[in-house]
């Protein structure tokens, strides 16, 4: 099943390797950029859904307070709120579910292409879909960041971990850590989540809990990825850094605007629909008007 996704990725990677003067690092970077750009519409949809959810959070909280103890009523009211705001609570999951196998496929393709042992390489024989690419195997796994300075910066073995490479390769896990952190930070701000504060808790503990979780994830995830990168091959670390950097560009307002223009997407600036309930029954709904921005002179 995975082969349907994986084999084309391995083939494209090998093809790019051939096209880019047998530079596997360049091939990894280019393929990562292509995949991240192609999956941008899915990513944008997921972001939009998350943002909408974030916008109706205050109303959701009000409902939770109002219907405390009556789960059925609360769920009905929540559904109505979602409907009126055209929000699907699991809407963000679908684009993510599509993106996930693509990104894992890309990650696995790099892993298979950088086969360093017979046991790994034997698998590659079933994965190259274009004739002629077999003559490139094994792909060149020694890579120098600056070929003119190999005395200062010796070649890296892309199939080995940073620990087994020259000392300067240890900068890669650090880069993974920093770029993962950067991407996480921008993700939080782009969906409207604020950094957690102690007084975020609104009494029921849920807000504080979520904020604490967010804060912990922003701290722990980069450390976790940085730590894993110590044992991953250098080639995979390069993929992580590239992917994170593209993520940073995608999540930044300018990047989103630029990519949105390419894919013809407009970001939703509409304020959420407020649903008013009286005596447990919805009686009217109002749409808040957007505040007019003062025109620039």
């Amino acid at each position: 099943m995975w082969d349907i996704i994986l084999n084309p990725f391995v083939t494209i990677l090998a093809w790019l390797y051939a096209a880019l003067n047998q530079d596997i690092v360049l091939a990894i970077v280019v393929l990562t950029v292509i995949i991240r750009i192609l999956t941008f519409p899915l990513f944008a949809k997921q972001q939009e859904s998350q943002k909408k959810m974030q916008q109706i959070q205050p109303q959701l909280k009000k409902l939770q307070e109002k219907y405390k103890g009556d789960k059925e009523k609360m769920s009905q009211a929540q559904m109505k709120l979602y409907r009126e705001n055209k929000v699907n609570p699991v809407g963000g999951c679908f684009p993510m579910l599509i993106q996930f196998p693509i990104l894992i496929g890309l990650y696995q393709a790099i892993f298979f292409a950088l086969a360093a042992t017979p046991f790994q390489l034997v698998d590659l024989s079933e994965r190259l879909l274009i004739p002629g690419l077999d003559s490139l195997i094994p792909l060149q796994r020694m890579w120098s960041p600056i070929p003119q300075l190999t005395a200062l910066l010796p070649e890296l073995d892309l199939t080995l971990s940073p620990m087994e490479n020259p000392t300067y390769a240890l900068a890669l896990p650090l880069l993974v850590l920093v770029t993962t952190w950067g991407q996480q930070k921008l993700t939080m701000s782009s969906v409207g989540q604020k950094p957690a504060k102690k007084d975020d808790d609104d009494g029921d503990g849920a807000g504080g809990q979520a904020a604490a979780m967010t804060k912990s994830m922003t701290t722990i995830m980069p450390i976790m990825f940085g730590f894993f990168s110590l044992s991953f091959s250098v080639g995979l670390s390069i993929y992580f850094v590239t992917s994170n950097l593209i993520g940073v560009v995608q999540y930044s307002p300018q990047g989103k605007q630029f990519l949105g223009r390419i894919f013809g997407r407009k970001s939703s600036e509409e304020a959420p629909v407020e649903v008013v309930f009286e005596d447990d029954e919805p009686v009217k709904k109002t749409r808040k008007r957007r505040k007019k921005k003062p025109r620039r002179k």
Partner: protein
Amino acid sequence: MKQAIRSRMVLVICLVLGALNLSGCVGARMGVSWPAIGLIDLYGETHITVAYNNDVAILSPANGAPARLISPIDGEVLRDSQNNPRTWILRGSENDGSQFFSAPIRLDDDTVLIADNNKRLLKVDSVILEVQRAYPLDDKVLTNSLVADDTIYVPFQNGGLSAISLQDFRLKWKLATDAGVWAQPLLVDDMLIVPSIDHFLYAVDSSTGARLWTADLGGAVASTPLHANGRLYVGSFNKSFFEISLDGAIMSTYATQNWVWGTPAIDEYGVIYVADLSGYVHALDSENGLRERWSVQIAERGIRAGPLVYGDRVIVASRDGKVYWLDRRDGQLLNAREIDERPELLGDMMLLEPGADLTIDEPLLLVSSVHDARLLIAFGVDGRQTWVYPR
């Protein structure tokens, strides 16, 4: 307090799931290679050797049981502190975490040599099963070394080969290659043939290491060539099989369906049998260049190891977990045996025939897998499973 604990729990679960995802992403293929099998004389009888991951074992060909260590003084079986008989299994865990993918080589009655995947050549006392000395090597070893004329030729995983004197274990000469040497070198008179995954076949003077010729085969060469008819026969990863003269000229080429990774077999009529990683077996006449006799796809998955010829049959083992017996005249399937749980049959095969030093009643076909519970499987000539060696 409760909420804090719950929050931590959720976080831990998320991290575990993240770690699981990452491990899933890496895929299951984290191994190095497959078992290396061979034969060795021990206590005056021929035994089977199998080297895989953390163990090297010497087995009885009769039943696949590890050989027992016998005292040279009284001929009694050596026993451990709990009075259990000691068996010939060298464990990497007891020897600085050694990993083995290279079969042991007998040096003399009491000594064997084993090149490990930890850049060491181990000199082992085969009587008491103890490492006497570990000589450092330039790189990891993942295929069999070759011994000839007081020299051991050790091929390296990441490239190159060293010729080391067996007298004093000093380096005689080195051959540099651009990528790994993943198959045992071949000695043809004084010429050492070294296949490399850097796409080249190297021929060097076995005593000096002087390069005689190189042949560019357009793809990785990961198998030991077959020497027959005054020619070399070898396949490569660019889906080709070659006939090469002993001075390095490519005489003839045959297109296969996929990579060729195993050493071909030849019968008494000069017909060469080649298997490839698409599950095809090809029979080629070799009298005037390479001409196809028949070519059949026999297995669902690739065939890594080279075929064997026995009587009127060609035998191949596939990654689909099956062993196939074909009619060598037309490639028709005669018999197929599925190994329990269908492990990938990646290691080389071996055919043993009864002899003075080999205590078996009938010919034995050895097939090796990467499944710990079925590392080595022995079949009779009729395809009946005789014994299984689990690790």
